[in-house]
């Protein structure tokens, strides 16, 4: 994947998020405060507007630029989290003009660590990490065992899907859903769902 492709993919992510805005908000309405889709759509719209000015830059700069846009436009919990994720991924890709499978794993590793650090959370707390951590594991495993980036990412998406389903079965201990205690059981986490959408869109647009 080169920088041009990355920009193309991020444009597609912005479209996808806008499409799923109402659904993500609906999910957040049940166990949160009903704004996740709104927040994400606002942020990715800002990203979309920023992308043209990032064209021609290296992958590190593009990812950091996206992270900054998310941090300063999403707000709420998901803003700093996704923002940190992209900024950390960018830092892991400093100077790269294209990304191979190994770089992709490293970027995603940095992103997930960034979220864990910023959110003081880990897998199993009914957050976006329940999609991202299994996805990262699957991605790393796939790449380590010699799969193509696309094939490994397909595994990651499948793992993220399972992770999203898993969020329905656990009680939230982080984020607003944690205020509901047992009442959060049976409901899908909005942040995990938006993470899945991002991974799905990357996969769909990988050549």
């Amino acid at each position, binding site marked *: 994947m080169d920088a041009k492709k990355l920009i193309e993919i991020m444009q597609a992510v912005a479209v996808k998020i806008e499409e799923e805005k109402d659904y993500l*908000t609906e999910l957040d*309405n049940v*166990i*949160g*405060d*009903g*704004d996740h889709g*709104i*927040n994400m759509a*606002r942020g990715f719209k800002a990203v979309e507007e920023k992308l043209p000015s990032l064209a021609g830059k290296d992958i590190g700069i593009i990812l950091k630029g996206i992270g900054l846009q998310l*941090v*300063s*436009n*999403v*707000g*709420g*919990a*998901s*803003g*700093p*989290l996704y923002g940190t994720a992209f900024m950390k991924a960018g830092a892991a890709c400093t100077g790269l003009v294209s990304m191979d499978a190994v770089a992709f794993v490293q970027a995603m590793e940095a992103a997930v660590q960034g979220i864990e650090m*910023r*959110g003081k959370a880990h897998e199993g707390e009914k957050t976006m990490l329940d999609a991202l951590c299994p996805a990262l594991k699957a991605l790393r495993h796939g790449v380590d065992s010699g799969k193509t980036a696309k094939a490994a990412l397909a595994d990651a998406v499948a793992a993220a899907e399972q992770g999203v389903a898993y969020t329905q079965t656990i009680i939230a*201990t*982080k*984020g*607003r859903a*944690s*205020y*509901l*205690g047992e*009442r959060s059981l049976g409901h899908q986490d909005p942040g995990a769902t938006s993470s899945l959408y991002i991974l799905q869109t990357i996969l769909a647009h990988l050549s």
Partner: protein
Amino acid sequence: MKKIINDVASVEEQMIQGLVKAAPDMLRKLEYGTIVVRAQRKQGQVALVSGGGSGHEPAHAGYVGKGMLDCAVAGTVFTSPTPDQVLEGIKAVATDQGVLCVVKNYTGDIMNFEMAVEMAADEGIKAEYVVVNDDVAVKDSLYTTGRRGVAGTILVHKIAGAKAEEGADLKAVKEVAEKVIANVRTMGMAIAPCTVPAAGKPGFELAEDEMEIGIGIHGEPGTHREKLASADTIAKMLVDHILADIDYKGQEIVLIVNGMGATPLMELYIVNNFVHDYLTKQGITIYDTMVGNYMTSIEMAGFSLTLLRLDDEMKSLYDAKAHTLAWKK
């Protein structure tokens, strides 16, 4: 959704503009974002910055003014402002004595303010923050996000604001803010939900005979649902919950009977009628009572009760002069 607004996208901007226009001599809106500061910038004293999502009016911009906040940073409805917005607010009021941010305990608010404080430090501004977590509806534990910050926050604004106005240093202002936080507890309920303008429909639905207990201030459902009961029964339940967390017996307290936005004063006074007697009977002395809409959830109908245990320092700071839109002393 039935609201008196122009369009969903401009709610926050027009609201903040309208608020500042109600007191142009006292307040100023920054160019950048929905950020309100005092018209006269403070010099040589610690500056207080608070904020969070919009939808809690009069919080927080209604508490900007002499004796309370120096700056309120408003995000979109129920969504924490972003770090760059908070940073902008901090920079607009920072003094050589530094800045204290008063943050309500929500993952989003904490992360965004934390990043802003880090960024301020990078620019050489001495900034710290305290986290208000007064809502006893939520269990506090190492393994959760802990109690939410709700109506008790305004007592932090008032008391820490008075301390800053006195010229105390950042350490002392932060200490008294933390003392308030340690001594204030709140619990709330609702009989009707609110609607985030951008969402277009209510956060939860209640039948004619149902109420939601342990609600927060973001339109989210509470800890559980019950059959609607009498004002006295509800008020007793909330007070008992609070007293189970801090035993205020034998103490002098400030009591806030806070409306969630659409609750008529009639109902708040009926609640106060019970709470006053009930607390008094338990040997709790009510030093002062505030009844009104102080920390709201747009047009949610319901109320919360807040108790703050006072000591001599907090008492005199509570009594100090304040001149803001929503709190005059």
